[in-house]
């Protein structure tokens, strides 16, 4: 029996690595006494496969994994038992059984919706005042036709254009919501942050980056992979004029 789950990793536990997270999962399954299947071979491993790894320190309400069980389980009870076994900050939010012949999970995980939260104040934003440097930067990124970002690759700097990866970007208060396509090479919110900083040189580091969900990008937002629910961007009150105006003076 194959099961797909969406789970969250929030709070202090976001500082453990993907490898450590795998061990935490395995132990929770054992504590919950669930009949997980093992791989064949010299060193049998429990069959749990994870979708793309979350960068260390990022929070998420949109992590996904696929588990194979050697015997049928009752989903509701299993989720309850695993959640009881998890340390604080980890919880399965949704679980579905995978029918035979269903397409791979990866085909459903085509984009991620992220919330990038900046410190309140600090000359950036006050609730109810959208016209501020961060709002202008978000507008500028949305309006840009190319967003060249310099990144390291195998020790040497290369320039990557972020534009094709950015599906949607919106702002509420000091939080930037961005849906990024799962491109190759993968574009992370940290790179989108660099693009924002190109328009807003005083932009401080984000205080928290949270993956909201993964799924299929559509015009209205993102269709979440397991539930099919729509995750919408923040409603946008900004004026296109200001964005155009600012994009002329962008630096970097």
């Amino acid at each position, binding site marked *: 029996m194959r099961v797909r789950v969406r789970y969250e990793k929030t709070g202090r536990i976001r500082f*453990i690595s993907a490898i*450590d997270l795998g061990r935490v999962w395995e132990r929770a399954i*054992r*504590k919950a006494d669930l009949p997980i299947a093992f791989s064949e071979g010299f060193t*049998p491993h429990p069959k749990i496969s994870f979708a793309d790894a979350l960068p260390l320190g990022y929070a998420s309400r949109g992590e996904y994994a696929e588990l194979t069980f050697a015997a049928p389980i009752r989903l509701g009870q299993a989720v309850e038992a695993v959640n009881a076994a998890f340390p604080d900050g980890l919880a399965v939010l949704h679980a579905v059984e995978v029918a035979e012949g269903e397409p791979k999970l990866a085909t459903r995980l085509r984009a991620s919706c992220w919330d990038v939260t900046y410190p309140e104040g600090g000359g950036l934003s006050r609730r109810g005042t959208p016209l501020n440097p961060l709002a202008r930067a978000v507008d500028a990124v949305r309006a840009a036709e190319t967003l060249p970002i310099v990144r390291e690759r195998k020790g040497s700097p290369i320039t990557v254009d972020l534009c094709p990866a950015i599906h949607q970007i919106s702002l509420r208060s000091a939080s930037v919501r961005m849906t990024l396509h799962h491109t190759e090479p993968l574009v992370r919110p940290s790179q989108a942050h660099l693009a924002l900083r190109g328009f807003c040189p005083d932009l401080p580091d984000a205080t928290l980056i949270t993956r909201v969900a993964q799924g299929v990008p559509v015009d209205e937002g993102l269709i979440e992979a397991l539930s099919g629910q729509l995750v919408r961007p923040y409603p946008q009150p900004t004026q296109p004029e200001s964005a155009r105006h600012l994009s002329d003076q962008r630096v970097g």
Partner: protein
Amino acid sequence: MDSAWLLVYPDAYEVGQPNQGIQILYEVLNERPATVAERGFAPWPDMEAVMREEGIPFFSLERHLPMQAFDVVAFSLAAEVGYTNLLNCLDLGGVPLRSADRGAGDPLIVIGGHAAFNPEPLAPFVDVVCAGDGEEFVGELDEVIKAWRRQEWGRERLLREVGRIPGAYIPAWYQPEYLASGELRGTFPRHYGAPYRVPKRTVSDLDSWPYPKRQIVPLTETVHERYSVEIFRGCTRGCRFCQAGMITRPVRERSRETISQMVRSGLKHTGFDEVGLLSLSSADHSDILGLCGDLAREYEGTATSLSLPSTRVDAFNVTLAEELVRNGRRTGLTFAPEAGTERMRKVINKMVSEADMLRTADAAFANGWRHLKLYFMIGLPTETDEDVLGIAELGLKVLRIGRQYGRKNKVTVSVGGFVPKPHTPFQWAAQDTPEELSRKLGLIKRRIAADRSLNLRYHQPEPAVVEGLLARGDRRVAAVVQRAFELGARFEGWDELFDYGAWTRAAAEVGVDVNWFTRRERGEDEVFPWDHLDSGLEKDWLWKDWRDAVDAGAELEDCRWTPCYDCGVCPGLDLQHQTGHLPISSAGTG
């Protein structure tokens, strides 16, 4: 909460987290009403730099409380290499380094663990030392701490009450005196109520202390990811170099039923997939086959593996290993012959013949094991170049056997430098210099250079000098520890961080001759800095065993199955070995 304990393992989290001492006392204390215990670990240098820059004090893992928020800070010292880290933790915690400078508001600084059997190099920095088992001691200390907080005693009164607890050694109450030659005349009590010798603590019935029951599971990787249960404490194999075996006597076994019960509940609560059956020589548990059989049966088909740190080198070990891998794979099997020739093994009292050893290797490879690891020491008393080369020879012989069963079979020879330790028959021995150890390593390297399938692993010889200085140092060495800490020495156990220069400079600055402590063979009448800490062993017996070793190469049998030879431990404790081995008539008084 009426008392708050901070249990610190002065090394990195990944090393300290699985430590049994910390795990046990953490649970014992937290089960007490109105007592809370949290844990702390030494910050890695990059973390320390940030803490110092930002003014962040040493803090606890659980609730991020600063060290000063605790009533007691108890350090677990498994080895000497944590001493500068201990000072660093205090310094980061804003606690005065020296006991004499602490006031009523400062926490009580306590040390325990194997290295506490010679606490003199740390004497000025700690308030209380507990040598031996901590399970009962911490409860008694906790009562005093609560009274201290309730009745707002001053520091003097607090120490006076702590001093009444059996096994509590308060260094400030003692004064060392030295002879003109530099040798110690003695360490004398200078305070009312201070005993001449402080006895170690011994828990007599391990079944009544079944801890840890709910071992803490790490969220990031540590050196041992398993549920560990001590199957017995103490060892009477009598290896003459082994401090742990000497200071933890007598042998106290946990029953098969208690162990099975602990494992069952421990695995359920932790989710670990490995069980470690711990002790100093686990194959010696009187019911080890039955125990392993029970566990192998119970966890068959669950991908739960059993591991058994064991130093025995005999066919029984292979039988046992077979039982252990019923559920898993055969990868590596480790043996510790410790020395390369039979002569040398007689001196250290590691009784195994070469023929036995080769038979064991044959049995292991024949049963499908592919990789044997062999542990050795160099720098042992009376060692000759022939003994050193014997290590390489033995490794090569085992490799030849392995090759008969598979071309890819491997042998690893791991070599460490011997450091004489207090409370052992070798406490009188001279330690080899780093130059001599390097030369001996060179002999081994050249001998095996031709054979690539024989892996050689070894430690750098310089850290052994510092270990030796701290192991047998007296109170004058404390100044070296403090100066080395000030010069930036940290994490002596980590090759990449070990700073030999800081130590040699520190010793030179405070006028301590390191060689005098490490390279000098001691005479029969020498008074040791740890003589006033009573491990139970008679010094006369240790001396006789030392002379038997070096004069005659005479071996000594295990007193679990041969008559008592009066090492001194049991009569003092009103307790005999608690094992399921067949009782034999004993010359001891029981």
